[in-house]
């Protein structure tokens, strides 16, 4: 993966979060404190502003830089949670990973997110999309993998709607949290979809204005 490709991935992820900030905020207003969209947007705007610098680094250092921006800029619990996801991926992933290495690194990162959030799969959180995506990545059958990942992420995020929140602000609502998609799960879905779309499209090089 070259710098142009890394930049394409960074831009795709940052832009999708930024352009969905209102939707994420609306989801969070339903079951949380209504700051998820604006917080994630603040974090990914810092990522976007640093995209050239980040893309010039090898993959692990790029992920570390991205995670650090989220930790320092998001300003809510999603900062350490999404920051920890990228910081632990950075620690576990080689510079030019195979799919097996990506799925193993994601498994380690998921454990780190669980520890950070004192949470587990099935509690209506970002983990409920991360874990199915990891399982899909680990599948030995690689046929049509990118499209399958995207579908799996979408289905997993939607499946958080009927769940009852146990962790985070949504847990204060108890049964009233049922019926709304978890905003953190939606953010992971958006990130996975952006990565899949970018990987499915040919590498783009800097467009001159």
């Amino acid at each position: 993966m070259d710098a142009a490709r890394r930049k394409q991935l960074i831009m795709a992820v940052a832009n999708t979060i930024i352009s969905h900030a209102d939707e994420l905020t609306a989801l969070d207003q339903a079951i949380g404190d209504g700051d998820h969209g604006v917080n994630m947007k603040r974090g990914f705007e810092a990522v976007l502003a640093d995209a050239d610098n980040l893309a010039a680094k090898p993959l692990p250092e790029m992920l570390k830089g991205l995670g650090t921006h989220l930790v320092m800029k998001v300003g809510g619990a999603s900062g350490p949670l999404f920051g920890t996801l990228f910081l632990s991926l950075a620690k576990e992933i080689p510079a030019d990973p195979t799919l097996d290495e990506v799925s193993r690194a994601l498994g380690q990162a998921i454990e780190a997110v669980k520890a950070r959030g004192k949470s587990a799969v099935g509690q209506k959180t970002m983990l409920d999309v991360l874990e199915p995506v990891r399982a899909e990545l680990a599948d030995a059958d690689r046929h049509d993998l990118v499209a399958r990942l995207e579908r799996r992420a979408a289905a997993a995020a939607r499946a958080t709607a009927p769940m009852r929140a146990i962790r985070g602000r949504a847990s204060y609502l108890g049964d009233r949290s049922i019926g709304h998609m978890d905003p953190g799960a939606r953010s992971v879905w958006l990130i996975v979809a952006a990565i899949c779309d970018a990987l499915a499209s040919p590498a783009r090089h800097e467009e001159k204005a």
Partner: protein
Amino acid sequence: MIKGSAAHVGIVIVSHSSKVAEGAADMVRQMVGDSVPLAWTGGNPDGGLGTDVAGILAAIDAAWSPAGVAILVDLGGAETNSEMAVELLDETRRRKVAICNAPIVEGAVIAATEAAGGSPLDVVKRTAEELSPL
């Protein structure tokens, strides 16, 4: 950010609101006095409601004491961001910081009272946490 005695455990107050954090710190100063290092931080990096890892790190630094620092937090993100900040400290400092599971205002006053008496960090933390419902 007024410095107290270096022999006493320092107190850091982390709220989503800078007004709550500052107000809690004012109460500590009035009720406990100036013998304890004390710092507060509140608000996200843009100044809105939320918490800020860089602000928490700066507050830990400002209230630093060789005896350690006890952190009082309010809701969810304040705790998660405080844990993140503690993890970013170097190894020797990290072991001397404790996040207290206690109500922020009452916990800060009780923790500071205990710290002013010269108690070590684990006692300061435990005393603050005795206020907790669980």
